[in-house]
Structure formats: structure tokens, C-alpha cells
């Protein structure tokens, strides 16, 4: 395992007076895919918001590439190479597909051998290429999800945070999304994949973190925590 690119250390976060994350700690190794599992309301998306700088933790701290960060703005984190594919896509619906991608395009100093640019993104997501002049709000749900992923890639991130990318999609489209995530992992990108469906995550993740009621209840490698050998009911309250 390489060095850690992102770590949450004893992070507690609140929405107003509601405690949502309680002393959450886990880390993402370089080039690894971490699956963050948990049922509705477990705190997965809050973890992603904290990791993307959209929500400041009240206790604990974040580490990026070995450096401790306490208060950081989301735009500063983006410049460090963190990119979020948010829940519900949150694409710019009134902009065209091309403009959605153009607004995120960046060639940072750490850009790897094959940087993401329009040609590579359109090669990876041909349907976006075909519809590049179309207003993004008129795309189908699956296409919007592809656009959200493509937009995140256009910033050539070092860490990709994906918050339930399969949410609300048809099973065939879900498999396309998961294939895309696998390809990105093979290309060496460090990824945190938030999902509710353990079957999807265990198939591609290196490491697993399970959250329940805002606490980390289980961590380990995907190989060690094989769902066949593990009673996930205890941790997820499902199956």
C-alpha cells in the first residue's frame, strides 16, 4: 500500500446542533479505492462534504498528502486535487454539456501522463461527445451521472470522491457507472466510493469502511471483509 492521500482523524461534524459524525477516522491510500458503506442517514454524504471542504468539522482534523488541514475552503481543497462527484449529480442544468466540462477544466502541476481533456473525456463517454451542445438539464439520468463524473475528471484530480453515483439509475446504467469507476481505479486514481449497495462496492473496492449512526463500525480490506463470511446485518441493518 502507498502512502495516505487523505485521512479523517477523529472528525466530529454537526448540522446546526445535530451531531452527525462522531470521531470518524479512516484513511485513503494512494491509488486505492475505498468503499464507504452505510444505510440512509449513517453519515456517508456528510463524510464526503467534510472531505471536500463543504462542511467544517467541529473536532478532529483532515490530512491531505500528509499535511494536516483544520479550516480549509472548498476551492482551496479543489486546488489541492480533491474532486467531488456529488449526490444527485448537481450538474449545471442551464449550461451545455461542453460548458459543464469547460468550467471544470484544469491542468494542474501533478497532471499524470494522460491528462483528462475534452478529447479523452469524449472518448471515455461517447454519449457526452454526441450531446456536447445540448443543455445538460435535458440529458437522461444516466447521462447526467456520466457528466457529473466527467466534470470531476476534467479538473484532473488526485482524489476522486464519489457520492452514491448509482443512485436512481437503471441497473444497466449502474453497471456502466461501476465499470467507469473500475477503469479510473486501474488508471491509478485514488477514489472514495460512497454506496448503499455493498454488492457493488465489494466487487471493486480495495478497502471498506462501514458507518452506522455517524460512527465507524467496521474497517478493513475488501478481501478480509468478504460479505460471504460476514454478517452485514449487524453493521448495516439490512440483508
Amino acid at each position, binding site marked *: 500500500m502507498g502512502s495516505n492521500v487523505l485521512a479523517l482523524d477523529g472528525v466530529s461534524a454537526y448540522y446546526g446542533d445535530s451531531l452527525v459524525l462522531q470521531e470518524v477516522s479512516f484513511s485513503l491510500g494512494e491509488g486505492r479505492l475505498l468503499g464507504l458503506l452505510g444505510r440512509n442517514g449513517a453519515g456517508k454524504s456528510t463524510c464526503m462534504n467534510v472531505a471536500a471542504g*463543504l462542511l467544517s468539522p467541529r473536532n478532529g482534523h483532515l490530512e491531505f498528502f500528509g499535511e494536516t488541514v483544520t479550516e480549509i475552503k472548498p476551492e482551496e481543497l479543489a486546488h489541492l486535487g480533491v474532486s467531488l462527484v456529488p449526490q444527485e449529480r448537481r450538474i449545471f442544468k442551464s*449550461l451545455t454539456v461542453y460548458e459543464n466540462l469547460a*468550467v471544470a477544466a484544469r491542468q494542474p502541476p501533478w497532471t499524470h501522463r494522460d491528462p483528462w481533456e475534452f478529447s479523452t473525456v469524449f472518448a471515455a463517454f461517447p454519449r457526452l461527445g454526441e450531446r456536447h451542445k445540448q443543455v445538460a438539464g435535458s440529458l437522461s439520468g444516466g447521462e447526467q451521472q456520466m457528466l457529473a463524473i466527467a466534470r470531476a475528471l476534467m*479538473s484532473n484530480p488526485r482524489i476522486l470522491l464519489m457520492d452514491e453515483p448509482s443512485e436512481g439509475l437503471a441497473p444497466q446504467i449502474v453497471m456502466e457507472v461501476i465499470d467507469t469507476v473500475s477503469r479510473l481505479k486501474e488508471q491509478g486514481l485514488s477514489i472514495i466510493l460512497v454506496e448503499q449497495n455493498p454488492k457493488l462496492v465489494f466487487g471493486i473496492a480495495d478497502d471498506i469502511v462501514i458507518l452506522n449512526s455517524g460512527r465507524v463500525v467496521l474497517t478493513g480490506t475488501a478481501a478480509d471483509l468478504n460479505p460471504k463470511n460476514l454478517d452485514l446485518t449487524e453493521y448495516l441493518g439490512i440483508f
Partner: protein
Amino acid sequence: MRERCLIIVTLMSLVSLPLWMGSDYYINIASQILIWAIFALALNVLVGWSGLVSLGHAGLFGMACYTGAWLLEAGWGHFTAVLGAFAMTILVSAIFGALSLRTRGIGFIMITLAISQILWGIAYRWIGLTNGDNGIIISARPTPFGIEMDTPGVFYIFTLIVFLLTMLIMAIFYQSPFGVSLRGTRDQSRRMSALGFNVWLIRFFAILFSGFFSGVAGLLFLYYHQYVSPHVLSLLNSAEVLLMVISGGTGTLLGPVVGAGLVVVIKNVASAYIERWNMLLGVIFVAIVIFMPEGLVPGTQRLFRWVFSRIKSIGAAIKSEAS
């Protein structure tokens, strides 16, 4: 090709307007429409492209009027007066931005309204500086390249050139990376932050850009009337220009121009025939909200698309019946 032809015909009609319009009164109305259209386009940068509704833009418009008038009164030339007016408008826009961007939504509306009311109060009450309700009269219009602008036709052509330049700059701005990122902040401001953008700074520059063109419109207004009074800073002016943007269609390039045309024509032409023209304007605005809530330009486009699709489907039905 069809679009290009339409643009050329429109341009030719606009340029030749003083020749075929006949009456000086209507040429002046056309000049007024263009001046208000520039002002509405400036406000559209905020309302349509940034999602920031300002109810105090008359403050920026009026600052350009007053600064230009002061400098001309003090004996400075037109060039200095214009530069000074732009500098002052941008400075006031920066103050507007720094204060109003601390809030969003209703707070933003109220702060912009409050700042413009302060400026109106100064113009109305500080008589030593502004001559109060009597206003300031300027003696002459400028003579760019030695061309006298005393006749309505020449002034109209000058206003048209400024208007077309404004339209061109707005079209370029809309497509530019800055324009795209500004529209991104309107759609998903948190997402723009997560993509690495300083949302506050983008909005601040948008206010400066909008303020600059409000200043352009203000200066044209000053030269058109050769007079400025506290009325230019009033809430009514801010509300009217907002009405132009909303009735024409926010976020579009043509919408504010159409809205400006509608309001100026009703104010100046319909008021000659109908005493309660304000009521007519209100009724038209309510009708727009009911039938075309997205504004006249996008609403008309939608209507045309619907009519064409109906004609197409009827044509297809007749064809299939015949075969």
C-alpha cells in the same frame, strides 16, 4: 443562413430608422429604448446570469449621471467627464458588491435597495452638492470626431453604435469562460466552490461589469436629456429596469431589449392615449407572468415551437390519411 439574413435585415432597419421613422418624437423614443435596453442588459448580468436580484441599480445609473454632470459643470471636458463617471460608477459598484454580497436572496435585494435609497437621499437633500430637486443641467452634448449630436437622428445613431457594442460585448461575455463560470455560480454555487472557484470574487466582478454598463446607460441618459435630477436614483427607476428584464426574459440577450422596448413604448406612446397607463403596464406584466412566466422572448420561442410542431403533426396526419 436564415439567422444571418434576419440579423442583417434588423441591422439595416435599425441603422436606417431616422430615414423612415419620419417624426423626431419617435426617433427620440427609439433612442430612449436603446438607452434603457443597455441599462436592462447591465442588470441582466446580475438577475439573469448570476441569480442576484438587485433593486438598487438606479443608484449606479444615477452615479454616472451625476458624476458626468458635476465634472462638466466644473468645466472639465467631455472625455474627462466620461472617464470620471466610469471611475465613480465602478467605485460605487465595488461598494455595492462588498456590502451586498454578504447576503443572498431577499437580503441582497434589501441591501441594494437600501444603498440606492441612501444615494437618492443624498441627491435629494444635499442641495449644495446636487442642486436638490432642481437637478443639474449640462450645456452641450459631446462632438466625437467633430460630429455634432444636436439632432435626434445623429444622437440616435450614436446611441445605436453604443448599444450594438454593448450587445456584442454581452454576447462575448456570455460565452466566455468567466460568463460560463458566472452562470455556474447561479446554478450550483457550492459545486463551483468544490470545483475550485472563488464564488464571491466571481460575483463581485460580475457586479463591477454590470455597474460599468449601468454607467454607460447613465451617461447616455445624461447626454440625451442634458439634465439630471434625483429621480434617476429613485426606487421607481430600479423597479422599472427590473420589470424590463423580467418581462422580456431573464438570462437571455434579447429579453431585456424587448422588455425595455415594451416599457418605454407604454410609458411614452400609450400614455398619450390612456391616462392610467401605469395600470395598462401592470395588466400587461400580470398577463406575461400568467401566460409566459419565463418572459416574452423565451415564451414566444416556446409558442413558435408549439405551433410548428402542431402544423407538422397535422401535416403528417393528412399525408398518412391520403396514402
